[in-house]
């Protein structure tokens, strides 16, 4: 297999580097979790260089975005970061609503906030659990997945799907939530800290876990900014940025929560930031669920972007016409001939959509700024000089989701 490292193409240098050997990591490897490939150049067991080779899961999501309308495309966003699909749904529709200038109802904002934070918890659980699993700590993974199962059940209750939720709509949500949802979330809030403490007790002072993660893959604050890192990866390096605080969208301005930051910037810091963020998210969920405002979840039907309620469609002529106006391919809703970037703080970092609208109900261009893509580009900087066994530790701490990476 022909591979190349960034440095050393000259003849003399080639001879000097003869003792180096190449290891192909992935695309099918249990520790990559999904299909991504890294070509490692090794000096014994030490990684000299790593060249990520991506695109195995490229499915042309951005091209699809130019052919599906603003409501249909939400189905595709599920498939981006499938660890927390709700966060992608919300990111997409927040960007679309920014473009259309729609102000959501308070109830919708709260429900979206709750679900975004539950999605964050589920994403962080998987990341922490899988990172620990790759380092040999099986039990923490099981605790994490137990909790994820409860979250899946909540998502299923809300929208009927555990995994591919597609829950948001332009100007609102697919369905309103009911009392059972509130009860389930309260139950989750009550029991989660104990499970969280279990994981903490298993890992935080675990000698092997600390040896494998502390001082590994150190990302300085300057590099984190220069390389475009966001989310927990940046916050573990001391970048105090969180869009929930800096550009409060949805209902985040109403809640009391902290942005978790650390200075070390190593794998252990990224783990701790994610663990602490879960508890902050839980605080937000708790405040939101206890103050859930009443009222409609969708914006007024007069804005001509939301579908009317189903009973109205079946029983009234206005409802039927309304449904027709929104659904028919030659009607749809009008958009400004403009372009707009809207971003949210997804569990992985800043997830933004740059939407170019041409007046029709289909985006002219739907660019996604995927945090995994940016973070995977950082990987070679983090791994150089470490042992080959640290590859999985660094990879696990970055939480690369190949579906989002390749789109």
């Amino acid at each position, binding site marked *: 297999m022909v591979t190349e490292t960034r440095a050393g193409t000259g003849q003399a240098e080639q001879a000097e580097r003869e003792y180096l050997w190449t290891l192909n990591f992935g695309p099918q490897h249990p520790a990559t979790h999904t299909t991504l490939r890294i070509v490692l150049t090794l000096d014994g067991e030490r990684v000299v260089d790593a060249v990520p080779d*991506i695109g195995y899961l490229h499915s042309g999501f*951005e091209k699809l975005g130019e052919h599906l309308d603003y409501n249909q495309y939400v189905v595709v966003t599920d498939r981006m970061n499938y660890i927390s699909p709700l966060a992608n749904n919300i990111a997409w529709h927040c960007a679309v609503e920014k473009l259309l200038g729609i102000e959501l109802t308070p109830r919708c904002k709260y429900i979206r906030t709750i679900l975004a934070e539950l999605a964050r918890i589920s994403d962080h659980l998987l990341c922490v659990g899988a990172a620990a699993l790759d380092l040999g700590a099986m039990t923490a993974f099981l605790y994490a997945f137990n909790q994820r199962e409860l979250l899946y059940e909540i998502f299923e209750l809300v929208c009927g799907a555990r995994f591919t939720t597609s829950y948001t709509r332009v100007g609102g949500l697919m369905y309103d939530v009911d009392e059972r949802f509130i009860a389930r979330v309260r139950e989750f809030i009550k029991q989660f800290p104990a499970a969280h403490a279990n994981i903490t007790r298993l890992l935080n002072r675990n000698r092997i876990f600390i040896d494998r993660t502390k001082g590994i893959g150190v990302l300085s604050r300057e590099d984190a*900014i220069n*390389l475009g890192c966001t989310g927990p990866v940046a916050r573990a390096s001391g970048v105090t940025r969180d869009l929930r605080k800096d550009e409060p969208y949805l209902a985040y301005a109403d809640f009391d929560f902290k942005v978790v930051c650390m200075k070390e910037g190593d794998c252990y810091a990224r783990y701790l930031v994610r663990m602490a963020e879960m508890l902050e998210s839980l605080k937000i969920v708790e405040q939101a669920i206890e103050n859930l405002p009443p009222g409609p979840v969708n914006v007024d039907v007069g804005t001509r*972007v939301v579908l009317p309620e189903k009973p109205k469609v079946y029983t009234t002529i206005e409802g039927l016409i309304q449904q027709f106006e929104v659904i028919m391919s030659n009607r749809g809703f009008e958009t400004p*001939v403009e372009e707009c970037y809207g971003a949210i703080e997804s569990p992985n970092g800043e997830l933004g959509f740059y939407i170019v609208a041409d007046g029709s109900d289909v985006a*002219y*261009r739907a660019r996604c700024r995927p945090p995994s893509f*940016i973070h995977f*580009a950082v990987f070679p900087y983090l791994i150089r000089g470490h042992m080959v066994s640290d590859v999985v530790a660094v990879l696990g701490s970055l939480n690369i989701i190949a579906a989002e990476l390749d789109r």
Partner: protein
Amino acid sequence: MGEAQVQDKAEAAAEQPAWLDFVEQTIAALRARFGQEAIEESRFRDNVRVIVPATKVYEVLAFLKNERGFDFLVDITAVDYLHYPNARDRFAVIWSLMRTDNGARLFVKTFLNEPDLTVPTVFDLWKAADWLEREVYDMFGIRFAGHPNLKRILLPEEFSAYPLRKDYPLRGRGERHNFRRLTREQS
């Protein structure tokens, strides 16, 4: 949607982002440096864009990074305006910048036309540009002069088209069928 939009404009005026003054000063500084006509400004919602000619784009970006503190490159993307209503130019490249300490966002946009689809790389300013520029090259065929490793990133090396261009069909031009197949015996 007439009424809703009017109301929305009033709301938008009410809650301007705190960094807007800083961005306005930045645009004034850009105009002082590069001339009034070189810097075109446009706004939509809270997005502030400056449109600059391709020949000056590197200097503008370097100025923004070094003199105005835009230390964070959020995104680089491109748009093909082939079928866009009232479009004069074919392509646009958009750099999305941010300042980490005050959260100011600014979009720098430049228009490109065939056959000269080249803009300078900003890899020396922000290392984040590496993969983002490769992706734009991969999808649109826009070259970034001076990029250390400008290769396709998502698509295979032997792919012959630029799929996010508007004249490329959704279902492709049959590239898939023409790929060399490796069977188990050959590999």
